């Protein structure tokens, strides 16, 4: 039986057309990352403007310019299916690095917003 925990990390996006980089530490009891989900308090802004690079244990999971909307879900999706499945990704040193890039998009106007990264993690036995 897997022991699953969910983790959430936030990045505040305060300026338009900039890169915001932040590193997070996972608990030492966590062995694998199984899923990733991106969301925001102003989800139209992350949907149209966002892209990011994600590294876990210095391994690139999503490369630069990977659009955030590909890692989001709407409320029509079952909660059990919302996370992007990355298999059993070993966390190693537990370091999660996210480089989020805000790009101007003609469909939205910028205002400060927060993005949240949710991880589904599996505890070590």
């Amino acid at each position, binding site marked *: 039986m897997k022991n699953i925990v969910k983790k959430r990390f936030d990045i505040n996006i305060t300026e338009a057309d900039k890169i915001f980089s932040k590193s997070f530490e996972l608990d030492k009891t966590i062995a694998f990352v199984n899923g990733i989900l991106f969301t925001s308090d*102003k*989800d*139209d802004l*992350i*949907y*149209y*403007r966002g*892209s990011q690079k994600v590294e876990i244990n210095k391994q*690139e999971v*999503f*490369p*630069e*310019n*990977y*659009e955030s*909307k*590909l*890692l*989001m*879900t*709407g*409320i*029509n*999706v079952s909660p059990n*299916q*919302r996370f992007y499945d990355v*298999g059993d990704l070993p966390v190693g040193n537990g370091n999660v690095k996210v480089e989020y890039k805000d*790009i*101007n*998009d*003609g*469909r*939205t106007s910028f205002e400060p917003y927060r993005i949240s990264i949710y991880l589904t993690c599996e505890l070590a036995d």
Partner: protein
Amino acid sequence: MIQDVIIQQLNITKLGEQHYFQINVPRSAEAIVGVEVGAFINQSLIGQNNTAPNRFFIRRNRVIGEVRLQMPNQPNFFYSSEIVSEDKNIATDDIPSFRSTNNGRISYRRSLNNPPPPPPPPRILNNPLKSFQHTHGYRKELDEILTCNERIIYGCYKDIIAKSTQVDLNYTIQVYIWYQEED
């Protein structure tokens, strides 16, 4: 087996532009397993508004362009897709407890004795009753394909949106190629 992704960015600036490109697949790749496409539009779209879709009324989606991918030595395209700005019919079959007028405004059912509802907030997206692509869209999925192991992919992108509006538009198309490799 692990999966990785290559991103090809195309900057489109001219009306009706056709962009031919090549994507190099790493030698470690054993098979291509999926393709995704997306777009960043760097300027306002003419005639584009951010209102929620009307219910019971099918609206035509705005197509940004068309991507086609082909392998060398293969007779046909293995992938062809239209990139759509957003799905305007996302709430077409949704039956809510309120109705929406033709111009997108919400009018609540109320008796004559009740006061009229307060005006909508300035940020239209704060209204939880409306449906947008980023709230009611489904989870994005790969277009799953399995192809032979080639080292190069030929691609062609054709602009549609600027051609339809007859105005030069500046936008970026992103093509994602997911591939599989040994550990």
